[in-house]
Structures are given as C-alpha cells and as structure tokens.
C-alpha cells in the first residue's frame, strides 16, 4: 500500500515537473517591452505624472484591481476576526511582563519606524515603495507595540475607524474621478504639478497614502486577533 502511494506520488510529481519543463523549454528572455508596457512607458509619465511607473500602473491604470485587492485584505481580516473571536470555554492566562530592554527599545524605535512607513507611502509615486510596503512597515510598528506594552488594551476601535475611513475615502476619490475627470479612479482631479516633486501626479499620493493606512490597519487587525488568543487556553484537552 505504501509503495503504491509513493509511486503514485512520484508519477504525479514527475508529470508536473515534465509540464513545467515544457513551459521552461519555450522560454526565451525578452529583449523589448510588449505593447501594453510600451504604452505605459511612453504615455504613462506624461499622462499620470508619476515618476514610478509601477505606481502609475497599480494606482491609476489598474486601480480597480487595487481596490479589489484591498477589499480581499479587509475580508481576510474580517473572517479571521469572526473565527477567532468566538472562542468558547477559554480562560485568560497571565502573560509574563515585557522586559525593560524591550520597552525602552520600543519607545525609541516606534516613532522612527512609523516615520519610515509614512515616508515610504507618501513617496510611492517617486521612489520604490508605496502604500502596501508602507502599510506593512506600519504594521510592524504595531507588532512592536503589542509585544512591548502587552498589558495595555490596544483598541480595535482605532484600527477599525482608520480602516473604514481610508477605505471610504478611497472609493470616494474614485467616484470623484468619474465626476471631475474622465473615469473611475482617474488621478486628474488634482493638478498634476511639477514632474518628480512630492506634490505631483494628481491624486496618486493621496490614494496611495489611504491605501497605506488601510493596509497597515488591516494587517494590524490580523496581528491583534492572533495576539489576543495567545493569552487564552481552552478548557478542553
């Protein structure tokens, strides 16, 4: 029985590997951009005003994708909250207090890491970076806060409020694009400004900052949910 199972596994994996090899065989490195990418490279900087073309693709040309993605992240956080908050028969286990080193280091580091996160998502249209990366950095601040000051209540409320407000504003800016400019999530509702400066690219920095806040709040919610169950131990077993 075991031999049969293993040989079946080998056949399946071998078949997969053969399929992958066929895909690899036809692969040839590219020497030029395709039509879509050429359009983004030629027209993109003038049309959107963003120096970082990846940002112009993520926020403007494929902005609807990004909206859907942020929605998926919100759904994930909501489902995790739903699954983990309905723990029955659990009692609180007292956690060991954080050490002096950790608390002091966290007090020094938290403002700096927050500043880096905000810098990353505000400059998303100029430098490598953007809302998702900056949001992840903000969530890492939250982890530090959680492990250093674990006895204090960290509010769900603030996170939910941030998340809701930024998500709502994101959709609102998208709808403003329909009214004031040529389409949903169009960034021409604000003046494009001088190319390559902080206040340029129309609504892109605003949208990316909102995405950054939203992603940071959602990742923090997920971490908070996971953190809250570690202090509980269920009675069964």
């Amino acid at each position: 029985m075991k031999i049969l199972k293993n040989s079946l596994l080998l056949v399946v994996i071998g078949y997969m590997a053969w399929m992958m090899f066929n895909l690899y065989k036809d692969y040839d490195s590219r020497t030029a951009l395709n039509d879509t990418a050429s359009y983004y490279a030629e027209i993109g900087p003038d049309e959107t005003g963003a120096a970082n073309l990846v940002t112009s693709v993520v926020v403007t040309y494929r902005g609807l994708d990004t909206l859907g993605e942020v929605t998926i992240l919100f759904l994930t956080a909501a489902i995790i909250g739903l699954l983990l908050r309905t723990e029955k028969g659990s009692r609180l286990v007292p956690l060991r207090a954080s050490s002096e080193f950790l608390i002091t280091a966290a007090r020094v580091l938290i403002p700096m890491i927050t500043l880096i996160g905000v810098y990353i998502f505000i400059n998303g249209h100029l430098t490598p970076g953007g809302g998702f990366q900056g949001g992840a950095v903000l969530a890492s601040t939250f982890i530090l806060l959680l492990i250093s000051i674990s006895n204090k209540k960290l509010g769900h409320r603030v996170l939910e409020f941030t998340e809701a407000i930024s998500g709502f504003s994101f959709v609102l800016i998208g709808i403003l694009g329909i009214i004031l400019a040529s389409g949903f999530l169009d960034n021409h509702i604000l003046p494009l400004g001088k190319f390559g400066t902080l206040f340029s690219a129309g609504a892109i920095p605003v949208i990316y900052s909102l995405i950054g806040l939203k992603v940071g709040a959602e990742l923090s919610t997920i971490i908070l949910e996971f953190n809250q169950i570690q202090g509980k131990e269920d009675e069964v077993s």
Partner: protein
Amino acid sequence: MKYLEIEYISVIAGFLLLVVGLWGIISQKNIIKMIISFSIIDTSIHLLLVAIGYIRNRTAPIIDSAVNKSEAVNQITDPVPQALVLTAIVIGVGITALLLTYALKLFRQNRSLEINQFNSLKW
C-alpha cells in the same frame, strides 16, 4: 552560455520551487507543513513573474536621473509584472493568515495537526 544568465536561473528556480511546493502539499501530513508548502508555491510564482518581466541591461521602471523620460521605452524593464507581484504578495499574506487561522481552529477541535486524524468526512 545563455542558460547561466540571471533570468534563466530565476525562471528555472521558480519552476523548481513550484514543483517542490506541490510535492509538499501532496505528500506532507502535517497541516503547518502544508501551509509552508503553499507559501513556497506563492514565492515561486512571484519569482517567475518578475523573471518573465525582466529585460537584461535595463533598469527599474522609475523615471529619474538614470532614465530619460523620452528614452524610457528602451531603458526600463516591464512594470506590469512588478505591479502584479505587488498585488500577489499582499493576497498571499492574507491567504496564509486565513490558512493559519483554520489550522488553529482545527487544532482546537481535535488537539492534533496531523491530517490523518481528521476523518469525520471519510468513509
């Protein structure tokens, strides 16, 4: 030697990681190991996408002192796969978090993470 260039190495590494991850999902009995295999597949696909968008001797798709605005078409790599990977990473984080939550719930119910112990739907 053509096949020692970075994009060929990246593509073959991506496919290898994909096969390794599939093997892990099929053969492993522990749920945590299956989740790790899923993450390996996730990473392999990111690697593949970025490798496919890469063009040799070109730079990142950001217009600055290194890239001339009018010459950008001949100087930058493909921005679209990079944007897609940016999306995929975040979705991957969300899915991994969900999988871990389900694993936790299963552990709470059966006090076990071995997939063989979950036989309530087996006949």
